């Protein structure tokens, strides 16, 4: 283990340059990456340097040097609490990975993978070679598509009154009741409607997932942040599908079909992508 211990200060170069590390964006086949490097490339995560390749056997990593004054352990942890610093670099990371994933099958890495020396990247490529090759093959020719389901709560609740027979009965009895009773019945109706709305949302999400999984190769449920509301309504569910490029039209038509089926019920679908397969990189 001690032989592997990275030296703390790597890359202290001739011209008195600051110590640097290597930021790694993605990994792919060596030959296909070399080809992409023949053409113009997007900017690196820090704007004054260019992207580089570090190759080992048949694999290569897309990297760029980063100053350890910003990307060393403490500095980076500090920067990560600054939304603007992180947002800008996140977009740059994404642009780089997107550029390569559009041109070849890549393994997208999570934000913030940094090595202190070139040799350490080579070592990683050879140690994890088998796993990396397997992921590259699994993702070949495929893209990630995000599918968001939004619910228009007002519309949904309104529809529910007609959907559920027991609710209809209750609301009829509320009309006929005395004012005091009627108030209590209406309270109960509100609670019931909210719970029916939740069930209905779950049902629709499951149905959409089932339909699109027939075409997609794989699916992931993504986290929905607390009250993620947008101009489309409330975000009810979020999926990522791994879709073969050749079947995308089919996938899109299927999504349009289910979208149409549920529009009147108060649901709206949004498709985002194509993404590098971030959600399918970890086995």
């Amino acid at each position, binding site marked *: 283990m001690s032989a592997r211990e990275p030296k703390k200060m790597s890359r202290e170069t001739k011209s008195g340059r600051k110590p640097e590390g290597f930021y790694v964006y993605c990994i792919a086949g060596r030959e296909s990456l070399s080809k992409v490097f023949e053409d113009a490339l997007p900017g690196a995560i820090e704007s004054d340097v260019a992207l580089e390749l570090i190759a080992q056997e048949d694999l290569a990593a897309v990297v760029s040097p980063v100053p350890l004054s910003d990307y*060393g*352990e403490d500095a980076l942890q500090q920067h990560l609490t600054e939304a603007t610093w992180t947002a800008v670099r996140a977009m740059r990371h994404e642009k780089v990975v997107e550029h390569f994933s559009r041109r070849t099958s890549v393994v997208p890495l999570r934000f913030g993978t940094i090595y202190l020396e070139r040799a350490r990247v080579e070592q990683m490529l050879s140690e994890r070679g088998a796993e990396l090759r397997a992921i590259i093959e699994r993702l070949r020719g495929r893209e990630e598509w995000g599918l968001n389901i939004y619910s228009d709560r007002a519309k949904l609740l309104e529809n529910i009154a007609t959907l559920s027979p027991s609710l209809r009965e209750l609301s009829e009895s509320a009309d006929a009741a005395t004012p005091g009773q009627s108030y209590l019945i209406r309270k109960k109706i509100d609670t019931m409607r909210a719970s029916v709305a939740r069930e209905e949302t779950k049902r629709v999400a499951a149905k959409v997932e089932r339909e699109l999984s027939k075409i997609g190769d794989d699916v992931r449920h993504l986290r929905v942040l607390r009250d993620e509301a947008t101009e489309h309504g409330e975000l009810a569910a979020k999926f990522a599908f791994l879709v073969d490029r050749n079947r995308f039209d089919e996938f899109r038509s299927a999504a*349009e079909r289910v979208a149409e089926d549920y529009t009147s019920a108060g649901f709206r679908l949004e*498709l985002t992508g194509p993404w590098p397969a971030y959600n399918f990189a970890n086995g």
Partner: protein
Amino acid sequence: MSSERSSLITARPPGLVDVLDRILDKGLVIAGDIKVSLANVELLTLQIRLLICSIDKAEQIGLNWWRYDTNLTTRAERAEAENVELRERLAELEHEVRQLTVPTASKKGRARSGTSRSRGAAETAATKKSRGRNR
């Protein structure tokens, strides 16, 4: 809506929130030599969502810099100009964020290292407030 069918699905360019959700949280995890904890992704995403209302606006006025391959030579100059503009804009946004969060956090200049629970709550409140204002 006349074009209802096509408007059901919008394959739009990725927004910042979608990007962050993916690259901060997903993607192959390889330890690397620098240990970073992205444990607080949710808080970070909330903070950044606070920015986004404004960045979306920035996009409307032409600051959609991430859609271009900025280093492709013919666009390099324009990209550089955009970068400068963007940096200024971000400085402004950073300022705005601070304005929004300071009144809810008890300490002035909010301790940089602190990502305590209470700060998370303050952040959330600020997010809601800003969203309300942006409607």
